[in-house]
């Protein structure tokens, strides 16, 4: 536990502007029939997050998808929760949020550390080859967050699906049919195609420091053995050299997927 405290202390006192995850935290993963749930957006690290209020300037897509189709998630600008959804359909409800790219400038050391933490080895090597390891990094980052909410009896037929986000994690099995210790197959897609060799990390709400990680195979798939019940966050980061005219050096994409297991 001392190690956990030490790590959290390090995170909280880390240099500002370090890279942070973003995920969706519905007010309930298992809502009752007809209930309205709040769709909270969270920014943070190690599943410890701060509210991200609804900012219309940042939203590219904020949607809910169930068997009846795709609908926008409405909410008050500036509000937390950023959106509200009525769960009406007996199925797996997919919540999705994709942001517009946002610029950020990071000092060299912070950026190098973040590349290491997120497993972005190819970019770290590219920076070394370009002799940029001591240069600050101008980055544009895009959030691609998803959450799976269950209403009704879970069934294997109900599955997550690709929403068309730039970087996207897709659970290939309904996590609400899983129990602690079982594998969750996940695929990672970048611009609609499988992304191989990317680091996918999973963490549990009650024990976020104990992470499970694996790299995607050639077909962009990874199997995560989830040892505990509870709320899970699965995340992956992808980075490419920023496109010309973007006024940045690098473009990053932050995918996340949240759900609950064992209920």
């Amino acid at each position: 536990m001392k190690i956990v405290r030490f790590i959290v202390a390090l995170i909280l006192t880390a240099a500002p502007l370090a890279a942070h995850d973003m995920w969706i935290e519905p007010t309930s993963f298992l809502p009752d029939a007809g209930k309205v749930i709040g769709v909270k957006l969270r920014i943070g690290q190690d599943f410890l997050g701060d509210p991200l209020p609804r900012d219309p300037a940042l939203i590219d897509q904020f949607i809910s998808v169930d068997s009846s189709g795709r609908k926008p998630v409405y909410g008050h600008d500036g509000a937390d929760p950023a959106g509200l959804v009525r769960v009406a359909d007996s199925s797996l409800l997919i919540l999705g949020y994709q942001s517009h790219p946002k610029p950020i400038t990071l000092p060299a050391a912070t950026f190098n550390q973040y590349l290491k933490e997120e497993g972005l080895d190819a970019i770290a090597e590219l920076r070394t080859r370009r002799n940029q390891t001591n240069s600050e990094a101008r980055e544009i980052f895009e959030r691609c967050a998803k959450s799976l909410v269950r209403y009704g009896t879970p069934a294997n037929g109900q599955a997550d699906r690709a929403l068309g986000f730039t970087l996207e994690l897709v659970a290939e099995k309904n996590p609400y049919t899983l129990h602690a210790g079982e594998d969750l197959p996940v695929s990672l897609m970048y611009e609609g195609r499988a992304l191989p060799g990317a680091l996918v990390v999973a963490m549990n709400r009650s024990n976020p420091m104990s992470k499970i990680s694996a790299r995607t195979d050639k077909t962009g798939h990874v199997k995560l053995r989830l040892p505990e019940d509870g709320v899970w966050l699965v995340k992956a980061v992808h980075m490419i050299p920023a496109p010309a005219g973007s006024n940045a050096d690098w473009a990053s994409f932050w995918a996340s997927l949240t759900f609950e297991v064992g209920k």
Partner: protein
Amino acid sequence: MKLAICCAIVLMILSSAVCDAHEIGTTRVTAVFQQSTSYEIEIVTDAAALVEKLETLSGESIQSGLDAAALQKQLQAHDSLFRRRFALTFDGTAVQPEIHYAVAGIATATSSPVATITMAGGLPAGAKQFAWTYAWTFATYSLTVRETGAERTEWLEGGQVSAPMSLALSAHTPDRIATGFRYLALGFTHIVPNGLDHMLFVLGIFLLSRRLREVLTQVSAFTIAHSITLALSVYGIVSVSPKVVEPLIAVSIAYVAIENIFMSELRPWRVALVFAFGLLHGMGFAGALKDLGLPRSEFVIALATFNVGVEAGQLAVIAAAFLLVGWYCGRRHWYRRLVVVPASVLIACMAAYWTVQRLYFVS
């Protein structure tokens, strides 16, 4: 209140120059310096998010679904830990303030409990600079510094040290004339352009009658009334919750506008009602004045000049309305049909909207 916070957040997001940073969160920090004697720093933040970090850092398991009282208890229990992740320095020397933790609100699909953490203490003698660090948030947050009515805002990342801020304004005894002018301007701008609801109320008074005497009778009743409750509220003798005052102010605007549609003469009860509504608006002005902060040593001057500023703002609205429509159209036979009635309908609709908004969407 919740809608007001949302609107404030949207306005801050839109008006901020923060583009090269993380997303803006919901944490807001306000530092108020009272002359050269004391400071008060208020942190408003999501209570559950803060408690989760405190619990994790202290090695406890995260307890979800805590109510406001339990969250407040947790904050109080982790006081020493909380103190490790912020720094308040004057001229480079850290100080330890007294901290009061309060949590209000309930966790629903649309709201979360909010923590208000108040730090207070005496300013070190001769303090010239102030710097602030807060590492309990991962998002970008605002630091607003208020000194005797002046205000500046800086955007900071969690853990980032603010640029040293000069305490020049509070380091010397303020000039009474300057204080007077500052609060006069604040009173005026509270009506024009910031107080659309008060402007519409005054327009409602103007629209009833073309006779100057009748307009002045109503304005005088309104002024006397709001002066009374402004002073009584600021001195703490009268205290009514904004949850009651703000919807009633909207109702008062709707009433005046609707009466204008059906009446064209000043009746005695109208003066009495305008007086009663003035009492309400005065409580609203007091809330705004308290938010701006009142210098202790210049309390009476600030209160009086703020009230004069409010009055000047109202007279400016009437003068503008007279010059724009009253002067030319006031004596036309179609003035009531084409100006008074449509304008009153619009004001009544707006006021009805505010009433519903303040009753049901502002917690």
